[in-house]
């Protein structure tokens, strides 16, 4: 648990550009990377230093944590997301949002910045519709860090909130409209599938067993995806239609058997398929 700061230098556009460039081949050094970015007229090429961008990519497990002299290269997860960046920018944003959310869980702990990210997003979801009050969010995180981790003076500032807002604002359908956070009326089916698998994993459900869709599970999924209950049901129906899961309803309630697990390594998974 080192930092709670979510870097504001890392935004959807630079993340996408970095993934697209690294998708072609590893790049020997930062200088070469900047030159490459400039040759493609990328936003990244207009920056003096990309250290923070690379740090964020490493924190998210998208590029290797190699030594100083080793070339910058994508991890397996990074490669998957880079391929996605080429054709589905909106889903890429949603998946990086999920990546931030699932790098910390109450069950297994994890990265401080991920805790801060999901706490801010979750707080907004809890109170939706609610205006974005940066100062209040900062105060909540600092107080929460002390309560949760006995960590006084957590490194979290308005720029950290900005780092989170980059991603929340880029989600589609939008959850921030005219400065007000609202629960979303839809999400990508893959995002819900990943989320349900992650919930099943951290809650200890054995591989191949069904996940009970009780109120707590539904709420946790909606909170992670920032969607409302109807969106959950709609998307669940889509997944069923796509054959990605099987729904069963009995006296004991509704359960789902997940038949697909896309984007291996993005969020907790019971079985790396």
């Amino acid at each position, binding site marked *: 648990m080192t930092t709670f700061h979510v870097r504001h230098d890392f935004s959807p556009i630079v993340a996408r550009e970095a993934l697209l460039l690294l998708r072609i081949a590893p790049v020997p050094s930062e200088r070469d990377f900047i030159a490459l970015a400039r040759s493609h*007229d990328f936003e990244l090429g207009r920056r003096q230093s990309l250290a923070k961008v690379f740090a964020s990519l490493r924190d998210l497990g998208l590029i290797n944590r190699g030594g100083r002299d080793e070339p910058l290269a994508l991890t397996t997860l990074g490669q998957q997301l880079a391929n996605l960046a*080429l054709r*589905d920018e909106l889903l890429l944003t949603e998946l990086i949002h999920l990546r931030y959310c699932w790098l910390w869980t109450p069950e297994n702990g994890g990265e401080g910045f991920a805790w801060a990210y999901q706490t801010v997003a979750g707080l907004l979801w809890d109170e939706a519709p609610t205006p974005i009050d940066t100062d209040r969010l900062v105060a909540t995180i600092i107080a929460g860090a002390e309560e949760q981790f006995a960590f006084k003076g957590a490194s979290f500032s308005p720029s950290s909130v900005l780092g989170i807002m980059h991603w929340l604002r880029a989600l589609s*359908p939008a959850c921030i409209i005219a400065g007000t956070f609202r629960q979303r*009326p839809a999400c990508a089916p*893959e995002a819900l599938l990943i989320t349900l698998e992650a919930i099943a994993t951290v809650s200890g459900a054995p591989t191949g067993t069904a996940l009970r869709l009780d109120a707590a599970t539904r709420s946790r999924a909606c909170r992670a995806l920032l969607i409302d209950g*109807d969106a959950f049901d709609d998307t669940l129906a889509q997944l069923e239609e*796509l054959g990605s899961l099987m729904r069963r309803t009995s006296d004991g309630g509704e359960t789902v058997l997940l038949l697909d697990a896309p984007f291996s390594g993005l969020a907790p998974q019971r079985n790396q398929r």
Partner: protein
Amino acid sequence: MSSLLAIATKAPIIPTFSARALRDTSADVRDSYTWHASTYVEQPALAELRQSFVEAVTQAKTPKACLIAPFGYGKTASAIGLWNACAQANLLVVPPISCGSFTELAGAIYGWLAFALPDSAPPLTEAHDKFLVSSAESLARHDERTFGIPFDQAVTAIRDKLERGYLDFDDVSINLLAFLEQATAVVQQAGYNGLVVMIDEFQQLLGNANKGVLLALRQLIWSLRVRKLPFGLVLTMDPDTERTLSDRAGDILHRIKDDGFYLDIRHIYDHAFPARLWQQYATALDLSPDEQHAIDHPALEALGQLCERDDLSNGPRTVINVLQRAAERWAMEGQAVYTPINLIDDLLTGTIRFDGDRGVVPSLVAELLNFPYFQRSGERAGTLKLIAAFPRGCPEQVAEQYGLGQAWRELNDDLRGEIVTETDEGLALIELQRVGRPANRLNILLRRYWMQITDQQLFAEEAVRVFRDIVLPLLFPNKVHDLNGWSGVDEIDLTADNTYAGIIEGTASTAFPLRRVAISVRSADLTDEPIEPFDDVDLQLVFALDVRPEAASSVTIEANGARVVVALAVGRVAEQGLYGSIGWIAHYLSPHPISPAVVLSLLRYLGREHLDNLPERDFARIEDTLARLREWLLAELFPAALFGSTSITVVSAGAGAIKEFFFQLFTRRWPSYHALVRFPTWAAMLKDYQQALGRVAPLAKIGQEPVTNGKIQIAELFEQKRHAGFDSYARQYGSLLQLETWQGNDGAIRLLPHPAEIRIAEQVRSQGVCEEQVIYAGLRQEGFAAAEAAQIISLAIARGLLKRDGAQITVPTAPTALELETRLQALSQRAQRLGRIPEHVSTLLIAFNPGVEHAAAAAWRLDQAERQLSKLEDQAAAAMKAHRESLRHQIMQHLPQLEQELPAPPAGTLIHQLTAVRKELAQKRGKLKDPANTFVANPDPALPLSTIESLASQIETWASQTRYYANWITFAKDLAELHEALGRTEAGSSGLELLHRQFDQLNRQARSVQAEIGMKGLAEVDRLRATLTDLNRQFDNLIDDRRAAYERTAARISDTVARLLDLPVTLPIPAYQPVNDAQSYRMLRHSIATTVSRAVALLAVGLVESQQASAQEKRNLGSLRKRIRDVSAMSRNPDKLFVEPSLSMKPDLVERIRKLRDQVDAHKQPDTTPSKTRSRLVAALSDLPSGPTNISSLLDKMNGTISRDDLLNDLLQLHENGLLRLIVDLPEPGDA
């Protein structure tokens, strides 16, 4: 037929008779109402009310009943039904009437009673007169008191008004009540159980509900409450009147409701009503059995389902309208049965007028029928109508009844969920459901799209326009400011040559602002070259759309980058289909293969929908999906690989790919261009700059001197009112404005020309005079945008570098100091690039000093310098060309070698090291081959010399290493041969032992060279080769040592074989050949192997099968013989017999032979032949050469130890056992 016509002509609206009509034409009223009553179907709720009401009247409870419904819900019909029913209960009922006043009401009652009870006319007349008189007198007294009008006059006048219904006042109702009491008494006296009065359309009586009317009504109702009369009052009113009454006189309404006969009849019509009504018609009109089938049962059921819904029908009025239509159809169209489909058809054509006022069903069905899905199939269209007729659900059996079962199932499969829904009763249209309608509008839109999608061809006709409408705005988003977005996209219009064309202006990359791009969108099969507008544009961009599924997309750059043709295979099926978050949509497009054309078509369809009125949730979801579809479309149309053929590498897809492509294309086309427009407000800022130029001294204009002044004054030069922040402002000008000092109150700036200004000044100076248009075109060629080019000329003029003379541009007589300085810098750079230059040239390249030299003289000096430099540059260029050609030849020589595969290393101690070398050389070869071929075939002059030199050097190194590698291969082969020779030669002499050691040392050296030095040590092979040659020579010279070693080896192996097989020790040994050591050993191996093989085979000689042997014993013997044959065959192969290189027998084979011998011994039968003799025979046979042998020579070998007969016997036995073959050979004459 006539009965049905009666139904057909029956008006759906029953008119209510007025009070006057009731009085004047009582019999007509009665007949009319009686006819209606005969076809009236009483609803259960009304029957209940009627029964209780009659009882209440009979029991003198003075009940008040009220029926509420809008127009068309059968209030009048219900009242007539009630009238008829009450009459059946021996009540005298005044039929439903509409009246405008209480007086009118009293007159109507009087009139009807007089008609119904002619014998009771006197008391009735008396009572009515009393009512009139009392009412008139009461009012006349009031007038007398208040206005002094004589009573008699007032009475006469008031009575007249009362009789004509012009007056109502509070006392009237009291008098009316008295009249009703008397009338009831008269009715009772006439033998009736009571009197009932029915006021239809009560709103007529209520009028504008003024105070007087309400007071009178209140008195009447309240008074009736306290009376105990066998009198009943029935009112009908519409909901508006009910509301008015409720608002203004709620107490009256409550008193009416108190009696419990208050009914809103809007909801009393159940779905069985039409069937019951039709049955009532059949009975009342005595329809024949055939006529009764004029409308079928499903149609009656469908009508019932419609009439119970006030949003889909006008209730009973619709029912009657439909039944009339059914009757008419039967009567007029040859007894055609009316079906639910006819019902919907009549709604669609408006034949049925009462469609619920809003026409929900016809408008929905009409909309759906417009979809090609229904237009393609009459069955589907019929089924749609059938389903529409049943809001509760159309069962499959009903569809089957009309031969539409298959279409019913198709609709169920294709449209369920979005257009139709499955209810308990069957299939129904979702839009007609009150509850359970899906909230998801997007899914409905997608399904509707699916219903209208036809084929690619349909889209192809509009592909170009749709591409213009949808794709172009995505590629070229609207202009935000000069450095962001595009203008003119919406002006790309259809041209006479059937393309969409126009010029857009905007910025894809801030490095190349304000580009003018001529866009043309056309069909790929357009044969004529279209006429496109390309006036003063930076780029012509053509999108050629090909809708054929087999087409392929491509990008072609033409006219040196000034024209790009993007051929787009919009009809090509997408390999991955719809993926990711929109993958689920594919389900809605099935079975159409997903292509950009289909998605374009879908986007077009969705774009036509009016989404603004949708709920926020649906709107957001649809917008999100649209965004994802657009992203998919662009990624599919413009994948990164599309640009591969242009040698421009892009890493994005979609709009990003286009941006990247433009950037790199422009960079390649205008490599030295640097934008003048660097900020969104450039136009205003450069205007300020030009104003500043106009306010400073000439030398300051060209940057030769700084502008020094107070900060305020400097800011004012640029029209800036405040100097705070001027430094930030100045930075936006980039190289045009330098802030030299900015401290305290003072500042100093320098206004510097753009490099392009200097260039055009030099151009004009060299030509003397120039057309402005020529200069402009030159700047455009360099990459400046149209606005930039104009601005640069303008700045150069403002600076004094150029002068405008009409349409021509000139320069000042002598060059400015700045021009001279710039020119000197350029020449110095050229000199620097040349390296060493002669002194006479370098002396010309000195700075201009206006104090000692005239500007014209300095210009002349620089002209001289330039001429010299040009000559030197030409020489350098020629030398460079020769050098490049030489490199090309050098590379070309190695091309054949680069095409060949490298030989594989031989087996031996160096194989691993040489394999690694070979792999590395192969990799290098792979990298060098293509660049070498490319360069040799097409020596690109733009390729930097350093690149060529590097390539040549690498190829040379590779070739050298390859040669050495070949030498290593030879060396390794020779080394392996010597290694093998030494390995088989048993040491036994000092010479051989020394050779062994020397060999081991050489072998180690060779391996260490490869292992430790690798590729760099390849040249070491020459040194090692010499040592190996020496060792081979030594080996050749050691003839005696080698022979001795050979013989030792032969003796050892002979001894081993003899002992093993019990053979004589004198086995034949081939002689040693000193010149061919290897061959000697090969022969030795072969000889020994033959001997062993034969000896083993002859082991079977002694195995004679006993006649008493059991089957098991016979099998064992057979098995043993087989094993002997196997081992014999194996032994015949030296490679299987010997262990290399020591030439000793393989232990496992030795062991097998030994075991065989033991087993043979165990099976051996008593042999009459002495064993010794047999052993000799075996030895002799073993020693025989290959091929046939004369028996006499064998006898000689036996050396008299066996007689001729015994030998022949033995041989014959061996022959019979298959161990040898005896051949009888008859010689040719003379050949014996």
